[in-house]
């Protein structure tokens, strides 16, 4: 019973590989690697690095059915992690582990993941910090361009509006944004926006004013 606690009684698989390749493929790969080590220790590996394993053996070790094995092997071959070929009469499927490819794959995976996590963290932390700093920088640039203070304030108030997630400001969401050009356009439009609205006269008022004009004309 004690052998149940030995490492050979457990299926060990790498989580990051499992996320990328799928659980079954990862289990198969780890089984193949352990087999590879076994063949290596016993000098049974041929010159090209091929070793054999049978479907029945794999099924016993990993509980993967032949169909699942075929699928898993296809995935591993597609990723370039293993190579297979049939050798001998009757033909046996021989496997070769592409160590460098496995290491590369793991490394890539780790890098990608770590950068992803790190990026996430940095983005969150950076954004929380930098949205203020970015805003300050934006304000500095706007005020340094010698436009009217009120105009600058209005401009900043409008363009530093945050998006829903609060990570970006309105001006950052624009495809192109040249502050000086935008300010020039803003200044131009100010005159248009500042136009006094037409005060609506009543019909009677307008008619009376027309009457007064008519009186003068007479």
């Amino acid at each position, binding site marked *: 019973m004690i052998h149940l606690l030995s490492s050979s009684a457990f299926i060990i698989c790498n989580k990051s590989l499992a996320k990328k390749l799928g659980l079954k493929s990862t289990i198969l790969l780890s089984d193949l690697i352990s087999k590879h080590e076994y063949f290596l220790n016993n000098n049974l590996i041929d010159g090209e690095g091929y070793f054999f394993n049978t479907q029945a053996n794999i099924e016993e070790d990993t509980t993967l059915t032949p169909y699942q094995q075929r699928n898993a092997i296809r995935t591993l071959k597609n990723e370039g992690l293993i190579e297979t070929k049939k050798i001998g009469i009757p033909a046996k499927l021989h496997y070769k582990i592409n160590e460098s490819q496995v290491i590369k794959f793991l490394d890539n995976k780790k890098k990608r993941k770590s950068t992803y996590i790190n990026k996430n963290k940095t983005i969150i932390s950076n954004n929380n910090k930098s949205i203020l700093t970015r805003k300050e920088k934006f304000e500095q640039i706007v005020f340094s361009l010698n436009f009217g203070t009120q105009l600058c304030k209005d401009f900043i108030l409008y363009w530093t509006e945050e998006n829903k997630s609060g990570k970006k400001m309105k001006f950052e969401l624009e495809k192109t944004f040249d502050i000086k050009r935008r300010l020039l356009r803003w200044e131009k439009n100010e005159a248009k926006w500042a136009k006094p609205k037409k005060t609506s006269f009543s*019909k*009677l008022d*307008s*008619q*009376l004013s*027309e*009457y*007064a*004009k*008519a*009186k*003068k*004309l*007479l």
Partner: protein
Amino acid sequence: MIKLKNENLQELTEKILDLLTLTSIEIGHRTDAKTLVSLSKIFANDLIQERRFGNLNFLQVKEAFRIGVRFGKDEPFMNIRTFYKWIYSHKKSIDSAYYEVHTLGKNPAEVPFYQSQKLLK
């Protein structure tokens, strides 16, 4: 009361201008100053020149306008043709009142728009 044929053109034009402005407000139109002046001048001149309105006075013209705006059959417009329609219609009422009193023998106090003088002699 001065008859229209005896009115001074300038004074009548001013009175007509007031009347037209009032009418414009009553109708709900917005007539500009130039149109008002033009209409007043033309209409004042017409009232003095036209023999058919010569025996009317300005108060009767005012009354014609008042009734025309309120009870006129057609859609009111600020043009000479409409003014003519209103005055002509009112003139008919006055003539009819004269007929009712003098021919049918009705009590003058009971006949609206009655005036002792016949408009057409």
